[in-house]
């Protein structure tokens, strides 16, 4: 459930986003996505950047292993080009604290700010001072209201949410040999991140896998209720081939339900890395795959985008970092690719 | 005592809590400048009587006259407004506040034009009061918690006498004090006579009662056993009145 909170934050972006299921991830203002792999600072620019004595501040919304991985990716990329990180903060989801953090960081006159604005409305005034002072602003997932690409900010980066849902569908289909019945446990709230991911899963199954049918749909708003929901679903559909769970937290509850029923056949697929869920997968349990975002790459691309802007190069308005499908065969690699840390001991 | 009219008259006071009779048929007169001691065993009704006089309890029946005027107190503050003050066993002092604020607790002095506290005047008047009663404290600005038990008792007595225009009720004023401090507080009580106040004192110490009082009133199980002139009685008589053993 490491992304739940991030997820909740991004909910505000929903207001700006058409809610129809897209065939790809689109930005807060409907921008087309540019893959993060296209955002590269050339080695030839290294000299210019180093001579610029540039500095950066990382002003996050909260602390989590996701934020740590983004920070690590950004810091490593900055280091390559001699950009010094002069402040790192966490607002703990407090909009007032985020405003204070921005003011405090500006004391150190950073050239770049990477940040996840807590929501479009409260962050508009909060980032105004930084914007007016010409700091290069690279945002994660959210965009302050009425900010213009190019003049006010550099870019918005986020996970490739559609890909995450699609890859979850592909992985579950593969584990079911592309036939059977599926239960869909989606996040029952107006939240940009989960809605995009959940709908991408559903769309993919419906469009790409004619022999798989979604026979049960159940929304969840409280992860603690996942076990009851899964129990009810299994009672009505005892021969479910697979279950999609919106993120890892509730997936743990679904797993508990399957174990309690002695069910060893129903496959589970979920999003975001979690040690207990991955452990079941490694031990050959119900979990078929976990789809994760490449948080480290997300951080790298944010840093790269900011530096490109410093070099007066064009940066596209909306960048997405890829998703990675983690199965029992590639847990160590998957963990490394997503978070750039070793997988937990139990999984290796 | 010179012949003068009674300051406080209690006539046939009854007090019952539900079916339990706490005080029955109690009558007593007090004159200004007179100290009357109220003695009796635990549960004899002394505290109930103090609470009736200070307005906390309303008597079930009976009359109270103050200065010849029939009165019935609705609560403690009306009694206070009539010039009756109580020195409680627990002293009722705010420990973390300075002496002068305690002296004027609930009746703080203010100054024009904004009605802010007149701390200087309260300090000066407090100093004067404690000096009069010879309560020796470092300063009127001292915090109560810095003072000894005797000093605190002195403050409580000084406060009561400052505000009492007629009657001071003292509930076990020296129960928690050592020998030297008790003697000092007794001196202070004796001085109150000079201010022409009537004083009703509850005490367990017969030595004290005989040292201070003009008359002694004995209660046993809510009944008034009798009132004696202190100079015309002795401890044996009082003890037998308290215990009921001849």
């Amino acid at each position, binding site marked *: 459930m490491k992304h739940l909170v991030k997820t909740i934050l991004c*909910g*505000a972006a929903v*207001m700006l986003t058409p809610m129809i299921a897209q065939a790809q991830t689109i930005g807060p203002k409907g921008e087309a996505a540019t893959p993060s792999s296209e955002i590269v600072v050339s080695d030839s620019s290294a000299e210019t950047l180093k001579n610029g004595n540039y500095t950066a501040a990382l002003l*996050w919304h909260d*602390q989590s292993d996701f934020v740590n991985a983004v920070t690590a990716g950004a810091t490593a990329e900055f280091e390559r080009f001699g950009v010094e*990180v*002069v*402040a*790192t*903060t*966490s607002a*703990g*989801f*407090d*909009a*007032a*604290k985020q*405003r*204070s*953090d921005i*003011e*405090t*960081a500006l*004391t*150190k*006159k950073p050239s770049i700010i990477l940040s996840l604005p*807590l*929501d*479009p*409305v*409260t962050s*508009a*005034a*909060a980032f105004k001072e930084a914007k007016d002072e010409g700091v290069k602003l690279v945002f994660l997932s959210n965009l302050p*209201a009425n900010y213009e690409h190019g003049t006010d900010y550099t870019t918005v980066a986020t996970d490739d949410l559609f890909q995450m849902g699609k890859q979850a569908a592909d992985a579950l289909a593969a584990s079911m040999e592309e036939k059977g019945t599926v239960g869909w446990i989606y996040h029952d709230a107006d939240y940009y991140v989960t809605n995009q991911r959940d709908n991408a899963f559903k769309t993919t199954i419906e469009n790409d896998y004619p022999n798989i049918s979604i026979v049960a749909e159940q929304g969840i708003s409280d992860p603690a209720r996942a076990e009851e929901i899964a129990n009810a679903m299994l009672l009505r559909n005892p021969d479910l081939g697979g279950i999609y769970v919106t993120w890892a937290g509730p997936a743990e509850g679904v797993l508990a339900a399957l174990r309690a029923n002695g069910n060893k056949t129903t496959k589970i697929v979920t999003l975001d890395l979690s040690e207990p869920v991955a452990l079941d997968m490694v031990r050959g349990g119900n979990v078929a795959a976990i789809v994760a975002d490449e948080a480290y790459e997300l951080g790298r691309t944010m840093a790269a985008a900011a530096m490109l802007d410093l070099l007066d190069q064009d940066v596209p308005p909306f960048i997405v970092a890829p998703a990675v499908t983690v199965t029992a065969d590639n847990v160590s690699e998957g963990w490394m690719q997503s978070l750039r840390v070793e997988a937990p001991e139990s999984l290796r | 005592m010179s012949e003068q009219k009674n300051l406080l008259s209690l006539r046939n006071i009854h007090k019952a809590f539900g079916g339990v009779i706490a005080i029955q048929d109690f009558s007593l007169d007090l004159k200004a400048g007179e100290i009357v001691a109220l003695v009796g065993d635990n549960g004899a009704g002394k505290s109930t009587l103090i609470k009736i006089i200070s307005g906390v309890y309303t008597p079930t029946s009976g009359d109270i006259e103050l200065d010849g005027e029939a009165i019935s107190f609705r609560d*403690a*503050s009306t009694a*206070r407004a009539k010039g009756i003050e*109580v020195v*409680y066993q*627990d*002293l*009722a*002092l*705010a*420990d*973390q*506040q300075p002496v002068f*604020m*305690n002296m004027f*607790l*609930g*009746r*703080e002095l*203010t100054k024009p034009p904004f*009605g*802010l*506290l007149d*701390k200087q005047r309260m300090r000066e008047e407090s100093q004067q009061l404690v000096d009069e009663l010879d309560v020796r404290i470092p300063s009127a600005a001292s915090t109560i918690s810095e003072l000894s038990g005797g000093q605190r008792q002195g403050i409580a007595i000084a406060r009561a006498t400052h505000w009492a225009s007629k009657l001071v009720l003292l509930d076990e004023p020296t129960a928690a004090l050592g020998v030297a401090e008790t003697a000092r507080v007794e001196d202070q009580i004796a001085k109150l006579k000079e201010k022409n106040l009537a004083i009703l004192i509850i005490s367990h110490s017969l030595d004290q009662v005989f040292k201070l009082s003009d008359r002694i009133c004995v209660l046993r199980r809510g009944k008034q056993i009798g009132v004696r002139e202190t100079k015309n009685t002795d401890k044996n008589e009082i003890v037998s009145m308290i215990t009921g053993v001849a």
Partner: protein
Amino acid sequence: MVVYIGFIAIFLFFAVTLYDDGFLTQRNLTNILLQTAPATIMAIGLVFALSAGEIDLSFGSIVAVSALTVAVVLQDYPLIVGVAAGLGVGVAIGALNGVLVAYLKLPSFLVTLATMGLFAGIARSMTDLRSVPVMNETFTGIFGSGKLFSLPSLVIWTAIGVGVGHLVYRQTRFGAHVLATGDNPRAALVTGIKVARIRLYVLMISGFTAGMAGLLYAGRLQAAKYTLGESDLMTVIAAVIVGGTALNGGKGSIIGALLGSLLMGMLNNGLILMNLRVSDQMIVRGLIILLAVAVSLRDSKR
């Protein structure tokens, strides 16, 4: 008092170690004043509540409800109506706390623990978790980004709050009765102080200052959100205790609370400028607050 020494010590420490990082710049020092303004205003109300022997845990939720009320009302009504509504809900919630505590004789800890949750929920449901922008520029000027004689409005509000708070607390009969009520309620009662009414009033004051803090947040952020004030509970309690106010009543200081609040703001600011990792910022801040509270409480026991 300890808070003065601690304040000066930490200020000097940051002034020396963070000189090159701009700690002493006018901009940074102004930032600290602006950032702590709402917490300082909340702290004033809490000093009154604690001094009377009550605690208010609900003020953080009141901040959110008040800020959202102002933001919503200002969408359709003029400035004065919005301000009155924001402060009004603060006082009303404080009065609810106060009536339950003073007249139904429920412990303030439990009452305000419950209303904290209740109004946090109401704040969430008021706008369905949405943030509400504040477009009224007169409002955001007066309560947020404006200036008077080159003094930022938030600094002026802090000064007014501390000035009036200190005067009422130290120089009025009401202030004396608050202290007496917290110090020894029985003594207060027998000397004619209306103890129940004092308890009601201090919780109303705490509601009022929380409402005011909500206005300042709405002005500063030009928006209101249900999370406002949520994280201030611990900061404000710590600021007030470090500032020499007793948790169990009868003793306190408005000036101390101001310094305690500035101390907290200075810590947040300095530890970020030191470029510590976020976890380390939390650890160091926690240790310093622990030290300050311990020393402050030891000091007040003597």
